[in-house]
């Protein structure tokens, strides 16, 4: 097949004679097809599109939005239609396909010669053969929709009341039409011959639940009765719809939405093979029975089925474009998953929703009171997902659909809302899920990289560790928040491939962070060099310098265990970007400064100091999400001057740069609030002052709410405290960020000292046993026994280490010293904040700032290229000359 196609391509590929492709039809499939060719470049191609409607191709899927307003449903880029090698002939109906002469004849009489012809004539809306059917409208094209809009307002004006609209057909399209007509001001009723709505996609339970939801929205529903006639008055005006049971529904407007009939007349007349139920028979490559004739979209019949859905039409269009260019891609078959677009009603159906697979099991949860119906269809061993139906709450749908045909990672029932919070159990990420949203890398691409497969299927070096996986997939190289998920994926792929998962943190250490923590503590090691020589993974590692993975990890362990100033004793060189400067590096190499504001409580005098600093140093000011104030744009050499002012005013480091406690967020509590039951601000300040500066495997946050209203959002924190009448409830393991998690209740109604004791134990246990860069939620996920285990250790002291953990925390509290105050006291420490070794106070001239909304921000590369004005930098300070020879060579 591929040879013949390539040969054909070669035959017509000469530049002098472009290959002529004629597309019959102007719907979304035609559009997608043309776009697919256009995007690949139009070299050697000429495309003619014959569109019957007078519009350029538009988005039929969004028709219901056009019903209620003037919207532009134009598809894709208008630019495409200006391409000289693409000719769009609107208002031209193809009347004959002449296979012998290889041309398409238009109603205008023009003949369009082709090398390839693509039939994309779509389908017609079916009108039931009823008496009076000619007076009914259909819901299919933009013209139909525009007619319905004007007709509804004409009727409303003429009748002086809301017009009655009856939509025949209770499928997806019918419901959308009825919903749209209702929005236009008509009283809409849906008539469906089957016993329930959307019977092609939903089972009885689902259809009935949907019916209740739709009724609640004020739409009329008649199921189980076929219409027998459309009644009209003498002038041909519609008056009602008669049903088989004798009922007559009053109607001023009747719309058919009962399905599609492929428009295969051209193909039939030309003698192409037609499917028994209509539609041009195509192969998986979208070729018809005649070489050079292709069919895509609703006119095509694949495996005996024509489908009125957009996704398969798009897929066919892509396959066909590829085939015409000599490719060999094939249509994967119909994906019938559907989601109803009707405001406020959630319906999803996918896979074998009606459980037609032999031996399949159905797990159903129905709550008619809440209008909820959820069902999963699984194989007879209850493992593999075959399909499902969600009515009322389709939240699990998007997570489940990619798992179709795969083994479910958890009990099927766990995915239904009945299981409680509705949080889907943790599962292996499907290939098409975006894992790294910064660089738009899917889980599948990362898996391929692990196995050394390029996205184009090429084979290369497998990526067996994090650095190489990050380098070749580009995942995790931007904001880094997906790194833990990437690591899990890597481990799981390596395990599946039968490789041992290196638990070592990097090439220099074959140990995990918890193992290193224990070992360093047991031997009381204090320097990286000692640790590397003792535990280095190989002779080469021992001879090396460590790396950006193991150095900060060990720096953090030493900080926790020794509680000493983090930049002393050679430990400065271990610190990660932000810890190194005790500030947060921003994209242009400047830093942001975050003073600690415990509990979010601050005096006006201190606020004024922050304002003064910002003004004096030209810093950009932004409130953080953690009740603090961030001052951006400080250069390295300015940090000590800034902190001198802040420390004198009583501020201390907020450790916004450290893998450490960030802040303790609180609401105003019982001091002011009329609902508060405890003093949440005082508790938050106590906690913040206790745990400030505590280094951990990852940053951590706390929150304290003064009552169950939870204004401090404590349950989104690693440690959340919520006041009760009797004391405090303690929640653990919550976080926001990339993978949000709700904190879980660890203990209830605690008094203050017990609360603090439990938090001491919890945090220290976390710090000792978590992996690097693992937040509390993921740590608890990975702990065998999870929350119960943590409760055993923290409350019941099942490991007998509670006293140790408390003592470690007591040491931290005792040795705490503000890092910035400590820095300012010591000239050796201050030396680390020089901009240049040979010009300690010179400003980095490469920093370019621009003004925006009254503040300064980094210029973008485009702005720099365009010669943005530099603001905010002082005069250039002359470069200092080092002691030694050749001073003349350092002039600037």
């Amino acid at each position: 097949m591929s040879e013949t196609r390539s040969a054909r391509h070669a035959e017509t590929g000469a530049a002098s004679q472009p290959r002529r492709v004629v597309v019959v039809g102007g719907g979304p499939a035609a559009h997608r097809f043309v776009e697919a060719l256009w995007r690949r470049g139009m070299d050697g191609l000429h495309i003619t599109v014959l569109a019957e409607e007078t519009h350029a191709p538009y988005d039929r899927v969004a028709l219901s939005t056009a019903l209620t307003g003037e919207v532009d449903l134009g598809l894709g880029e208008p630019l495409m239609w200006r391409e000289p090698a693409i000719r769009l002939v609107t208002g031209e109906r193809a009347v004959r396909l002449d296979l012998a002469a290889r041309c398409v004849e238009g109603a205008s009489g023009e003949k369009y010669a082709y090398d390839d012809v693509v039939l994309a004539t779509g389908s017609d809306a079916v009108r039931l053969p009823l008496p009076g059917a000619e007076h009914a409208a259909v819901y299919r094209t933009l013209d139909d929709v525009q007619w319905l809009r004007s007709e509804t307002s004409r009727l409303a004006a003429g009748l002086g009341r809301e017009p009655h609209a009856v939509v025949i057909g209770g499928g997806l399209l019918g419901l959308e039409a009825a919903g749209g007509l209702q929005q236009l001001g008509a009283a809409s009723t849906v008539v469906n011959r089957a016993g329930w709505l959307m019977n092609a996609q939903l089972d009885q339970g689902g259809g009935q639940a949907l019916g209740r939801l739709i009724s609640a929205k004020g739409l009329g529903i008649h199921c189980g009765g076929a219409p027998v006639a459309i009644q009209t008055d003498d002038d041909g005006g519609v008056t009602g719809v008669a049903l088989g049971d004798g009922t007559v529904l009053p109607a001023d407007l009747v719309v058919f939405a009962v399905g599609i009939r492929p428009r295969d007349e051209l193909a039939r007349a030309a003698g192409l093979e037609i499917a028994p139920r209509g539609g041009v028979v195509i192969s998986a490559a979208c070729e018809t029975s005649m070489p050079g004739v292709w069919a895509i979209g609703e006119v095509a019949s694949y495996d005996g089925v024509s489908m009125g859905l957009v996704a398969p039409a798009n897929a066919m269009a892509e396959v066909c474009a590829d085939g015409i260019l000599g490719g060999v891609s094939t249509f994967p078959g119909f994906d019938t998953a559907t989601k109803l677009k009707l405001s406020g009603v959630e319906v999803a159906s996918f896979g074998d929703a009606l459980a037609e697979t032999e031996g399949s099991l159905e797990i159903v949860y129905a709550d008619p009171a809440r209008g909820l119906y959820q069902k999963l269809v699984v194989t007879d061993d209850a493992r593999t997902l075959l399909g499902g139906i969600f009515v009322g709450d389709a939240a699990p749908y998007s997570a489940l659909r990619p798992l179709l045909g795969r083994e479910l990672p958890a009990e099927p029932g766990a995915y239904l809302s009945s299981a409680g919070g509705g949080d889907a159990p943790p599962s292996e990420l499907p290939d098409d899920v975006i894992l790294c949203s910064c660089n738009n890398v899917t889980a599948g691409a990362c898996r391929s990289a692990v196995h050394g497969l390029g996205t184009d299927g090429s084979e290369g070096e497998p990526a067996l560790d994090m650095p190489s996986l990050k380098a070749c997939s580009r995942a995790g190289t931007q904001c880094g928040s997906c790194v833990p998920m990437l690591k899990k994926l890597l481990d799981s792929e390596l395990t599946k491939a039968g490789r041992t998962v290196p638990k070592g943190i990097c090439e220099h250490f074959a140990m995990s962070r918890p193992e290193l923590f224990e070992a360093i503590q047991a031997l009381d090691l204090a320097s990286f060099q000692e640790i590397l020589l003792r535990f280095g993974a190989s002779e080469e590692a021992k001879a090396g310098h460590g790396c950006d993975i193991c150095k900060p990890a060990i720096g953090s362990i030493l900080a926790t265990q020794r509680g000493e100033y983090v930049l002393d004793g050679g430990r400065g060189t271990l610190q990660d970007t932000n810890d190194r400067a005790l500030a947060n590096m921003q994209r242009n190499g400047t830093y942001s400064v975050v003073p600690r504001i415990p509990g979010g409580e601050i005096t006006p005098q201190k606020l004024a100091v922050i304002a003064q600093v910002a003004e004096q140093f030209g810093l950009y000011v932004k409130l953080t999400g953690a009740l603090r104030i961030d001052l951006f744009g400080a250069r390295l050499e300015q940090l000590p001057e800034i902190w001198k002012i802040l420390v004198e005013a009583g501020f201390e480091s907020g450790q916004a740069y450290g893998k450490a406690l960030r802040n303790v967020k609180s609401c105003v509590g019982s001091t002011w609030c009329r609902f508060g039951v405890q003093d949440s601000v005082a508790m938050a300040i106590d906690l913040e002052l206790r745990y400030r500066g505590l280094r951990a495997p990852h940053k951590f946050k706390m929150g304290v709410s003064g009552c169950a209203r939870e204004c401090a959002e404590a349950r989104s924190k690693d440690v959340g405290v919520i006041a009760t009448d009797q004391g405090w409830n303690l929640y653990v393991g919550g976080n926001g960020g990339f993978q949000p998690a709700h904190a879980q209740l660890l203990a209830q109604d605690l008094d203050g000292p017990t609360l603090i004791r439990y938090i001491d134990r919890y945090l220290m246990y976390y710090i000792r046993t978590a992996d690097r860069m693992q937040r509390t939620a993921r740590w608890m996920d990975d702990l065998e026994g999870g929350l119960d285990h943590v409760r055993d250790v923290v409350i019941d002291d099942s490991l007998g280490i509670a006293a140790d953990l408390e003592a470690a925390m007591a040491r931290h509290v005792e040795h705490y010293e503000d890092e910035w105050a400590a820095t300012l006291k010591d000239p050796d420490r201050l030396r680390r904040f020089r901009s240049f070794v040979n010009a300690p106070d010179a400003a980095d001239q490469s920093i370019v700032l621009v003004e925006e909304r009254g503040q300064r921000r980094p210029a973008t590369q485009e702005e720099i290229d365009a010669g943005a004005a530099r603001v905010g930098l002082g005069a250039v300070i002359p470069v200092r000359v080092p002691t030694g020879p050749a001073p003349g060579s350092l002039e600037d």
Partner: protein
Amino acid sequence: MTELILQRPAPSSTRWAAVCRLDDLEECWGEAALVGREQIALFRLPGDQVHAVGNIDPRTRAAVMARGIVGSRGSLATIASPLHKEVYDLASGACLSGGEGLGAYPVRCVDGVVEVCIAA
């Protein structure tokens, strides 16, 4: 003290520029230096080896390379960008994770003074 730390053949249109004293540099703690109009990142490794590479991070154009973490990959001494953690070979400046490299400058130490070879 006169010792040769690292010497590579310098192209003809270059000169040696004195930058700082060797004692100004702490082991494994990078420092930025201004040499003419150029920003250079200096790294002193154990055994008094000194490396000089461009201070501009190729990915972001920010002058931050001196503030990265010194490390090793196999037997190569490396520097990781403090912004997005690309890893560069300190000797050649090549990016080990694939991408634009840093410029590398010949360095020597004369009488305790670190000199970098730059374009004349």
